[in-house]
């Protein structure tokens, strides 16, 4: 059984001391170790921002893509090589500003990948600008008078897009986060995991302390039915999204299992020579 450290490439992260992203990194390593995923069979694709650096800190196939596009890249990888465990990770700007369309459609497609949003409700790497997940009234360099826009509710958006796995974690609750990520990776389909990952430099509102005071742990609710869409919606609205745990999961078939044709080995292993079929292909054009 590998240890979490087997997934580290010994690069020192550029993150600020105390950044919530450290915990996300350690939790991902922990989940991979718990599932005994060979590092060469793990691909982690990230977007741009502080969070985007995560793919460069792992001893895996790490792909630091472009802003908002981690999900399409990750889907491309998984579709041609389903033998890989593919994880997309990015910030709230990646997932809910520039890449919102990809988030919705990736959820809807239900390709078997795990998507981790490292949500700090602020743009850190640009040195403090508002995010689509910032609370109304949030003061930043781009909203000196306070944000006048309403934040997106990531869980509701995921549920309405047809998500088959929706969970939330908190960098301050690492043991639960490892558990959630393990379940998310095991889930056969698209797993959406929103992680409250505090920015200690530019978000003085949503701090570790603030989250500890406000988050409800779904694991503490007796008989919470994570297979009911209705309960999931109710739970989300009742807590205004401030909870951790697995909100919703179902067993809908994933994208790959619905592809037409006989699917033997992965696309990437296919024989590329079709000269024996060529004459038959030409028949269409006579």
């Amino acid at each position, binding site marked *: 059984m590998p240890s979490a450290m087997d997934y580290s*490439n010994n*690069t020192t992260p550029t993150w600020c001391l105390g950044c919530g992203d450290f915990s996300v990194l350690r939790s991902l390593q922990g989940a991979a170790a718990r599932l005994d995923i*060979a*590092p*060469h*069979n793990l*691909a982690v*694709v990230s977007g741009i921002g502080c969070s985007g650096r995560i*793919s*460069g800190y*792992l*001893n*895996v*196939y*790490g*792909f*630091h*893509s*472009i802003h908002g*596009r981690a*999900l*399409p*890249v*990750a*889907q*491309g*990888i998984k*579709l*041609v*090589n389903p*033998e*890989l465990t593919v994880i997309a990770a990015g910030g709230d700007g990646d997932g809910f500003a520039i890449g919102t*369309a*990809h988030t*919705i*459609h990736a959820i809807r*497609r239900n390709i078997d990948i795990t998507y981790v949003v490292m949500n700090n409700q602020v743009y850190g790497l640009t040195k403090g600008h508002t995010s689509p997940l910032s609370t109304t009234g949030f003061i930043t360099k781009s909203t000196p008078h306070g944000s006048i826009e309403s934040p997106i509710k990531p869980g509701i958006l995921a549920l309405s897009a047809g998500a088959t796995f929706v969970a939330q974690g908190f960098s301050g609750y690492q043991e639960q986060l490892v558990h959630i990520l393990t379940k998310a990776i095991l889930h056969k389909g698209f797993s959406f995991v929103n992680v409250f990952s505090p920015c200690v430099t530019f978000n003085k509102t949503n701090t570790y302390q603030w989250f500890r005071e406000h988050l409800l742990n779904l694991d503490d609710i007796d008989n919470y039915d994570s297979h009911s869409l209705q309960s999931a919606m109710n739970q989300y609205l009742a807590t205004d999204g401030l909870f951790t745990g697995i909100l919703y999961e179902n067993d809908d078939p994933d994208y790959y299992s619905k*592809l*037409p*044709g*006989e*699917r*033997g*080995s992965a*696309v*990437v292993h*296919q024989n*590329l*020579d*079709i*000269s024996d*079929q*060529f004459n038959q*292909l*030409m028949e269409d*054009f*006579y």
Partner: protein
Amino acid sequence: MTKKITVMFGGIQGEGVVSTGDTLIRALSRSGYFAYGYRTFSSRIKGGHTNYVIEVCTKKVLSCSDKLDILVAFDQDTIALQYKKLKKGGLLIYDDIILVKELQNTLEDKNIQWISVPLTGTAKEYGATVMKNTAIIGILGKLFQLPFSKLEGVIHQSFQKKSEEILVKNLSVLKKSYETPFAEDFDHLQYTLSPSADQTIRAAMIGNEAIALGALSAGCRFMAAYPITPASEIMEYLTKKFPQVNGVMVQTEDEISAVTMTIGASYAGTRSMTATSGPGISLMMEGIGLAGMAEIPLVIVDAQRGGPSTGLPTKHEQSDLNSLYYGPHGEIPSIILYPYSVEECFYQTIEAFNLAEKYQCPVFILSDLNLSLSRQTIDPLDIHQISIDRGKVASASSHNLPSSKSYKRFLFTDDGISPRAYPGTPDHMHPITGIEHQESGRPDESDQNRSRMMEKRMSKLKPLKDLPGIDLFGNPNSSLLILSMGSNFGIIQDAVASLDTPVAIGMMKRIKPLPASQLSCLFQQYHKILVVENNCTGQLANILKQETGYHQQIHSLLKYNGLPFTHQDIQMKIEELI
């Protein structure tokens, strides 16, 4: 003797003009003749005038004549809009439900023959109104004296997937139309096609189909794309055929997703492509830069249409050259191929996949609406002529490649190309990033590293500059060389063929990197170079001037009204220059 007949079908968009044209082209190609089709359509689903011009010939043909021998009118509008294109003595065939009284004087002035035929009538009597399209196939088949069995064959193929009843009805409409004699005073014999020299059965294809078939033959097994005119046929073909080769086509939410998903699949080790037109290219630019920076093979088809913005979405233009040539922000190595015939679409697509993996960079297959959508009789495609070269790939078992501990994805090498390792390869884990990086793949913004890495990437394509990229035609004993690209080939070739003056023709099949050595030979050989292109600013001419410096010798012929050049456009310019 070569015989050529130019025929136009005109009618209301959405009523089968296109499928009628396609069917006739297939029937001719099966019967040993050659055909070339050109479609005019507008950006709407039903309604409005549409037409399809077909050049019928006893030898290979790649353009339509400027004037028509036959105009087939399914409706009144077609006669009003198109009869002026008929040659003196030309033939108007119209559905007898149309009233032509008003036009009678005009038609007589032009010395035009006209015959009315019961297209709708026969269709209704033996099948259904929509089968008037089959009726005209019967009538033209008889006019050209094509064997009935060939017509029957194509109708079979067109309708066999529909119900038995529909097939049978179409066949009776065809038979009735073919058997009904022409009026006695109509001299139909002048339209008889002489029996073709060879009875070879040939295929007919559009450029987009050849690109898609080329991709499949090159081992492309993944495509992500967003529908757009005039590129959609490529995704439509591959999504149909992929299941039988275990490939995957995804219709994405936008072109940004299309290009980045393609990059992901290619990075993972599968030959992958996307296809789009100008507006999609604009959206893809950031992704294209990523592929250049992270050295990921990427094949992108750009079937050009009229720009900018939504521009002329169903019209012909060649104006994306600058966008592709100068590319995304920053500087990346990239390759632009531009096939000039349907056959070349097939072979160059295969070449594009090999180049993309050899040089680990974006490769554009440039096309234009006219090339992408014009159905034409083609020469046989030879699958055995092709080879698949995956370039430098590291594997766990390869001994001559770097061992696990020292594997560096962006290793400095003599040719600037470093072995790739697909995810899943043991002991070759590495990071990649769009940030400037070191050999290991880790970000590194230091000045020394930046210079070396930039030089590594930008030097990869140097060898291509010395490889030829222009195919030469016409008469080399001339002082004039016409340089052009894409579907202009057929037009220029046919325009030049009827001139007494010798003219050389060069088709630019690789635009980037420019074939510098070959160009400098050509500029020494020919006094005048005429660059023929469909855009307003002379994009190709400007690139040639910039890269070769031969400003004085370069002349331009431009057209940017949405239509391809006519033979006359080319001929007039040649006369002016010689």
